[in-house]
């Protein structure tokens, strides 16, 4: 019996559909009404999904920034591991509503969610 699920997003946009699929799963959990908390945590290459200047229209792919905005409509939380993003592309503006966090906060999120699934 679980009331919460954490989506661990580890893949970069847009080579795979994983981030989009994970965000959609999170949205569906929140929309279903039967799961009280469904949170997205970007780590590793997954942190690249937080970059504000993404323009997936250039390759006709569904937009990960829009998928993140959709989550906000259902009060879904979205976090990005600051250290991993910085190590890849330095300090870049990130999407509104995404919160930069440390590993300590990431460990808290693992503790606070009963299930963890990886994308």
């Amino acid at each position: 019996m679980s009331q919460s699920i954490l989506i661990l997003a580890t893949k970069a946009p847009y080579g795979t559909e994983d981030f989009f699929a994970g965000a959609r799963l999170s949205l569906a959990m929140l929309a279903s009404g039967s799961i009280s908390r469904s949170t997205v945590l970007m780590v590793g290459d997954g942190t690249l999904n937080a970059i504000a200047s993404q323009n997936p229209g250039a390759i006709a792919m569904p937009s990960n920034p829009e998928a993140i905005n959709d989550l906000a409509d259902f009060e879904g939380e979205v976090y990005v591991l600051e250290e991993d993003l910085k190590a890849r592309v330095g300090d870049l503006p990130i999407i509104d509503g995404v919160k930069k966090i440390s590993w300590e906060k990431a460990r808290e999120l693992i503790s606070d969610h009963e299930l963890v699934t990886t994308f």
Partner: protein
Amino acid sequence: MKRTLLIHLRSGSMMNMDSNLAVKLARAALDRGHNVRIFGYGEGITVVKEGQEPKRFPNVGKELTELAERGATIVVCETCCAARGIHRGEEVKGAKVGSLTNDLSKFVSEADRIVTIAR
């Protein structure tokens, strides 16, 4: 103690051994007296396609039907099926085409543990 295991499968029937791993874990969990739910998402939906005729590799579709006969619940994402040209009615016996919102959210709320099988 009887508990509920949710297997979140996102690899296809033949692309790697992941689908076989899902079957083996499900079988072992049933042997131990646990409840088993399998949700196929993304490429993972291809495991339920009827008419699989692998020459030398294990027939995952057949194995899923056997798991269902033993009490496992197997559902795959309809949107992912339609995207790949697989439609309702083409699933193997014992598997169901369903949705994140209706089916996976229920599986999550019932699950004691989740195992994600994806690469």
